[in-house]
């Protein structure tokens, strides 16, 4: 696990400390500590300060030494400072400030998508081939194939631009409120991105749930239960669901890991100020320290989530615990 994290951190280092400058032919120290432009009176003094800043940021070190400095600071959550003008201050503060928005939006929509998806999937599998199954299968397959930016912009154009029911710019809208009104405004601004994410992610859950339930329903022990004369709902919810839900729970844990990476597209479209939105803004404003930190935090979350998923799977499935 630690090895994976270190390798991911190394890739991160390559992505943000080497690749951009290599491709764009810029010196990193020139980027991070630019020379002041225009008429400068005390050139010698400014050069001296600049050299000090570059030394403090470690840009005068060779790449491999920079890598170790980088590793140490990453694992002590010392992510440096925002550059690029969109944000200022320590990166860790930025992340602490904006992560809650992402967790709120993604957390609620993911949970909702899983609940609805699991329910529809089980019902669909139980009624396989009937009208209800065909209808929900077609609809959700359609949703599954929809690009998230298309759903998002469609919702925004209809409900915000033309019907004016919801704000176009979420952040600008709710940040003008305070106290209890802020919570209300936040929730109102969240409706469209929430719906958009729900529609996008529900399809995948549904399809997997449906196919695993169909799988489980063809098992011998279900036939046994049926032969015992159990009711259909008892078979479905007491016997089939317990097994069919296992892969979904693992998936859920893993998707919880990716929660911080946010929905870059949905958050950008609705100007929802989560980490996904900032991932996009940071790259547009070349705020590499922020981008690097976001990537690193996401990786930690994902590794942790995978670990939890493994534990959970073992806990839920006695066959694995025994084996």
């Amino acid at each position, binding site marked *: 696990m630690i090895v994976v994290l270190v390798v991911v951190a190394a890739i991160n280092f390559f992505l943000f400390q080497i690749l951009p400058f290599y491709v764009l032919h810029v010196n990193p120290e020139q980027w991070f500590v630019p020379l002041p432009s225009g008429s400068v009176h005390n050139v010698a003094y400014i050069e001296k300060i600049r050299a000090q800043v570059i030394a403090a940021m470690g840009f005068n070190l060779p790449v491999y030494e920079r890598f170790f400095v980088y590793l140490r600071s990453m694992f002590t959550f010392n992510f440096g400072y925002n550059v690029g003008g969109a944000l200022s201050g320590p990166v860790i503060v930025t992340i602490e400030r904006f992560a809650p928005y992402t967790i709120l939006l993604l957390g609620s929509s993911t949970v909702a998508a899983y609940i609805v998806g699991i329910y529809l999937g089980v019902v669909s599998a139980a009624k396989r081939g009937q009208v209800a199954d065909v209808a929900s299968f077609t609809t959700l397959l359609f949703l599954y194939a929809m*690009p998230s930016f298309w759903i998002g912009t469609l919702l925004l154009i209809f409900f915000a631009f033309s019907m004016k029911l919801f704000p176009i710019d979420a952040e600008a809208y709710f940040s003008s409120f305070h106290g209890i009104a802020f919570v209300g405004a936040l929730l109102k601004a969240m409706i469209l991105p929430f719906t958009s994410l729900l529609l996008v992610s529900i399809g995948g859950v549904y399809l997997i749930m449906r196919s695993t339930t169909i799988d489980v329903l063809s098992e011998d022990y279900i036939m046994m239960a049926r032969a015992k004369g159990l009711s259909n709902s008892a078979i479905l919810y007491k016997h089939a669901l317990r097994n069919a839900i296992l892969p979904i729970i693992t998936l859920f844990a893993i998707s919880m890991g990716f929660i911080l990476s946010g929905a870059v597209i949905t958050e950008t479209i609705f100007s929802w100020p989560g980490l996904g939105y900032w991932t996009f803004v940071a790259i547009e404003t070349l705020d590499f320290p922020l981008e690097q930190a976001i*990537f690193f935090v996401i990786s930690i979350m994902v590794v942790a989530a995978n670990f939890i998923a493994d534990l959970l799977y073992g806990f839920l499935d006695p066959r694995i615990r025994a084996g």
Partner: protein
Amino acid sequence: MSWSSKHQGISEFFHNKLGITGLAIIVFFTFTALCAPLLTSNSPNQIYVTGPWAVPQWATAFPQYSDLPSNMLVTSADLANWRITTASSTQATPQQVALPASALNGLGFKFDPREALLISSAVPYSAKTFSGETVASLSYNFTYEYKPPYDFTFGDIIYVANVSNVADFYFRFILSGPSGTYKLTSYAIMSNSPVEVISYRNGIPVGRWYDISLSNVLPDANTAALGPSGSTAVDSGQIFLAKKGIYNYTVQLVIIPQQGETAFVKVYMEPAYFHVLGRAYGLLGSDDKGRDLWSQFVYGSRISIEVGLLASAATVIIGTFLGLFSAIEGGVLDEFWMRVADVILVLPFLPLAIVVLFVFTQSPVVQKDPSILYIWLVVLFSVLSWPGLARVIRSQALSLKERGYVEAARALGAGKLYIMNKHLLPNIMGLVYANLALSVPGFILTEASLDFLFPNASTIPTWGRMIAKAYEHAASATAYGFGWWWFLFPGLAIVLLSLAFVLLGYALDEIFNPRLRKR
């Protein structure tokens, strides 16, 4: 897989309705991608093929669009349909002339006049002619029965045969009708910068064709020479052709003699034209600059299909090979590749793609040739996506490896490569085919998303870029209404194509996975 089971699989596939539907959609879009140049004659980035914000032609069946104009060329090659008036100093006679092909290059449409009016005029200087005398005018009546257009182009083709003692001479374009009389512009021949110099008389190159093509929108070199009161207002078609009715389009030749001299001018004038840029066009209408959206749509299918198929093929090849290889080899190499897979699975796909795409779009190599970008995307997609498949293949191969027939083969001295090729690969081919189809939608959607996020990364038309541009304008240009035809169809195409691959993948899965079959 033996021949008979393969045959059975194919016949089974043809009984799977959803699979066939998917295949049909894929075939359709592959066809549009391959035959793009045959399906549309317009280049996707050619501006003002028609008017801006043109609805699709078929949309005129709906009442709210029923009287939108299509592209409409108002002219008559036959001079008999024109009313010709001349001053007393002037003679005008119709003549047959051969027009060089080069004279028609600038026009965006086919316009082939055969007859020209030969105007020879001698205008003595006087107080009246100090500001110019209209020596000849051609006017043409036409009926306009539509809603006003946004834009239009107009002009004439003339041949200057002889000029002397002229202070200036120009063409004046006038449109009059129920909406009022408007001087569109005055086009001064003398201030037109000569392109090819044949011989000068009085400072004007003579013996050459002048293509006066003007418009209220085109960034034409000629607009620099717009006359003193030419209107260049945006969407001036809305004013000039505001009402339905009979309009009169007039071109006047105006001569200003030099002080104290008598000016002689001899020019050939073709019948002038007035071209209404339509508000209903083609199969999918046009965008904010009058580009053909059907053409963008057709060319856009190329990128989607290309990126989707190539990335998925590369993913499946890498994933299958590394999965099989790890399963057979075991030991350190197995461990190594599976740890690599672990690392890649931890990386957030879309943010990483955004970063790499952004960095590449900034690089000079890609800026020179933006099509490289999509090749890099394919590489990136396949590098990031093989681990999922490799894991599945590996676990499948590990269980197959322990089967009796594989052990028997090994006991007979079969090599690893032989076993991989002859015994393992055929058994996992179903999984591979299904994955090949099922991984395509993800790539298509991601590619479209990236184009949506970076619409200005290149000018290559793609579905994602079309949606991004449509959305951009939905947010800003409300005066034109929401361009639903611009926004909806690329989105529907993405959905359909992704859906098609999902259906195909499911059909293959059902054929190769007997457990999934209906009882």
